[in-house]
């Protein structure tokens, strides 16, 4: 006899993630990932000027605005074979890095740390011994007894008020929570500090992009930032210096706090290196271009089939023809019309809603496939693709992570351990450290290039009247993002966005193969099926982002079956 648990949180009327798992003998025996709202936003773009598309795509998602803007301008530039001036590449790279650092920090602390950290144990902690422990782990200067005491006081105040407020719905006291009160306090203190440092990362995006959350400085062919070291209104030395100071602070937080905390959590929950593997085909695209033609990159891309790192196929450029030919979208189990998988350039988005049915259609997410197989995307894919190709920066921080986990917990993680729930967290922290180092590098590249007297930021696009096609890719915080555009008569003829969360949250396909979320949940043990904390741990490890949709506020706060046993 199996029970089915549905996790379907609603506080807003929006497209969001729903997870259904069947539980037998306290382990997950089957799983479905679905999105509960129709999108089809791409249709809005047909007939519009391709140079404007990025303004609209930036509104696909309120959390990942910049990434959709960037992929969109790149898709048009690819179709027009337009080169991008060096300054524009560096400015874009700095925006992408700062946005990613913000996103990775928010993901770990605000969106997933409390799956591992029991806030209600914090009143029992001793700030003095916690501070000593912290000093043994990291040189971070904000681990003092006073700072930790202040964090503990915040929790005490919330607990004493009788209203748990923001902590009202955690699985506190769950048997799968195992950190000591001191470690819980340390992590929570960093949860509070993280709010400050992710904001600094966003400030960098704001300075370069004019505004957040919707940057204004992009344009097909480059950026619209005027560079003039002597003008108050342009990108000048003062602004560049502000960016440097902000980045240095964020870099320090990532390397001395975030990275260390992830390693500590990993060392204390080592069994999670064996849970949550799922799909072991991995896909990542190269990003952070280093020249105007886009022929070399600072982040590696490639495809790994069935966990075979030695057989990795690297992508030398974002325009790799193998990548372009291999992507298709299957709608067998998605609420769309269509029979066979379609390439995004000829993709369709015609709804065919049936309601949730376990063996037929059950999601608004299409199933992207690589060579007709599911693929996992995200920081883990990027780190594995990098390690498999001997990418020095990836190997450096992956090595440091393995050393740190061993030093804290005596746990010797092997590369195979990365195919797991903890592996996804570890890979994100490794990637964040890489990006932190690259932030400083690309800042220097920009300053050096400007110092040579190069102020060029834009090449003028020319739209042909005949049909052209392009792909804009970006290795976004959640993984490979690709925008596919067809242009005819200077207008958009077709537009499809294949986003990271559709790769990972995809439903089954025509062959019945599970998507990555679904596959990763199979066999997960549940200590208390009515409090499915373990399911949340694995789903959160992907950094899901499903909404990209409607956000009407529901004042009644109604919730529908947070953990409903059917």
């Amino acid at each position, binding site marked *: 006899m199996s029970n089915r648990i549905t996790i379907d*949180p*609603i*506080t*807003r*009327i*929006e497209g*969001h*993630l729903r997870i259904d798992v069947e539980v037998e003998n306290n382990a997950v025996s089957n799983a479905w990932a679905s999105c509960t709202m*129709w*999108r*089809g*936003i791409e249709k*809005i773009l047909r007939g519009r*000027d391709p*140079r*404007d598309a990025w*303004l*609209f795509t930036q*509104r696909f*998602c*309120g*959390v990942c*605005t910049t990434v959709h803007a960037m992929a969109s301008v790149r898709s048009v530039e690819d179709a027009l074979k337009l080169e991008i001036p060096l300054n524009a590449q560096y400015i874009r790279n700095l925006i992408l890095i700062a946005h990613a650092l913000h996103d990775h920090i*928010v*993901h770990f602390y*605000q*969106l997933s740390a409390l799956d591992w950290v029991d806030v209600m144990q914090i009143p029992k902690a001793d700030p003095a011994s916690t501070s000593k422990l912290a000093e043994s782990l990291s040189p971070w200067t904000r681990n003092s007894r006073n700072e930790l005491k202040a964090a503990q006081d*915040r929790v005490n105040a*919330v607990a004493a008020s009788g209203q748990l*407020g*923001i902590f*009202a*719905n955690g699985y506190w006291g769950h048997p799968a929570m195992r950190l000591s009160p001191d470690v819980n306090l340390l992590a929570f203190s960093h949860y*509070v500090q993280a*709010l400050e440092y992710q*904001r600094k990362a*966003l400030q960098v995006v704001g300075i370069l992009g004019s505004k957040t*959350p*919707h940057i*204004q400085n992009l*344009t097909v062919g480059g950026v*619209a930032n005027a560079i003039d070291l002597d003008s108050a209104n342009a990108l000048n030395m003062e602004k560049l210096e502000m960016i440097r100071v902000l980045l240095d602070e964020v870099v320090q937080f990532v390397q001395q706090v975030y990275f260390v905390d992830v390693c500590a959590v990993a060392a204390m929950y080592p069994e999670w290196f064996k849970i949550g593997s799922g799909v072991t085909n991995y896909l990542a695209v190269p990003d952070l271009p280093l020249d105007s033609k886009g022929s070399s990159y600072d982040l590696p891309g490639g495809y790994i089939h069935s966990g075979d790192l030695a057989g990795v196929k690297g992508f030398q450029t974002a325009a790799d023809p193998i990548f372009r030919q291999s992507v298709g979208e299957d709608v067998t189990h998605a609420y769309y019309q269509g029979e066979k998988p379609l390439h995004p350039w000829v993709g369709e988005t015609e709804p065919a809603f049936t309601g949730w049915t376990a063996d037929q259609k059950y999601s608004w997410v299409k199933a992207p496939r690589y060579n007709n197989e599911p693929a996992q995307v995200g920081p883990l894919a990027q780190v594995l693709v990098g390690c498999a190709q001997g990418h020095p920066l990836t190997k450096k921080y992956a090595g440091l992570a393995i050393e740190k986990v061993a030093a804290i917990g005596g746990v010797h993680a092997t590369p195979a351990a990365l195919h797991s729930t903890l592996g996804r967290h570890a890979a994100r922290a490794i990637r964040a450290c890489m990006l932190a180092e690259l932030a400083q590098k690309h800042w220097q590249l920009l300053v050096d290039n400007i110092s040579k007297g190069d102020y060029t930021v834009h090449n003028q696009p020319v739209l042909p009247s005949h049909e052209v096609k392009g792909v804009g890719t970006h290795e976004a915080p959640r993984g490979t993002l690709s925008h596919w555009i067809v242009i005819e008569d200077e207008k958009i003829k077709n537009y499809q966005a294949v986003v990271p969360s559709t790769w990972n949250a995809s439903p089954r396909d025509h062959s019945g193969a599970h998507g990555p979320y679904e596959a990763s949940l199979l066999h997960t043990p549940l200590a208390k099926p009515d409090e499915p904390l373990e399911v*949340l741990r694995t*789903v*959160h490890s992907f950094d*899901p*982002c*499903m*909404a990209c949709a*409607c*956000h*009407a*506020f*529901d*004042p*009644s*706060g109604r*919730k529908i079956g*947070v*953990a409903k046993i059917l």
Partner: protein
Amino acid sequence: MKRALIGGIGNVLLGDDGVGPYVVRVLESEYSFGDNVEIADLGTPALDLVHRIVGLHTVILVDCVASDDSPGTVRLYRKADIVRATPVQRLDPHSPALSECLMSADMLGASPENVLLVGIVGRSYEPGCELSQAMRSAVRKAIRRILQELDEYAFAYRKKPVPDEPGIWWSEPRALTPAIAND
């Protein structure tokens, strides 16, 4: 000096959900404000809203709301109404709703003193860049309510002699690119 934020929330690509950004852009085209009042089209910010509201005195948000009232009805909510909703399990970064942002600001000890949500009951959220007629007819009422709130807390503003173009770029049929290049 007391500071205020007037923020439009919603997705401009999803029909009536775009009413928040629409209202703040019309407001900004017709009135000018002191340096202590920020007007922002916030899109759908989720947890990033925390950064926008900490340390402010007044936060006025305009958003589409779900309700049994007829489309276009303007309903007002205060902080207590909003935080009454208990946060549910977060599965994705969009889940942290307005209530959680206010609670996070509370936990940081920097929650705004005065919060007003000007909610407009929506009708259709299908993909598209136009507001339904019911929403358009609610815009003036929403703006009056925002100004009334500013009056109450003595935030200065004045009507522009000639209003600017409101810059509702998403629903303009003409090509946008030349205008952007000149920005």
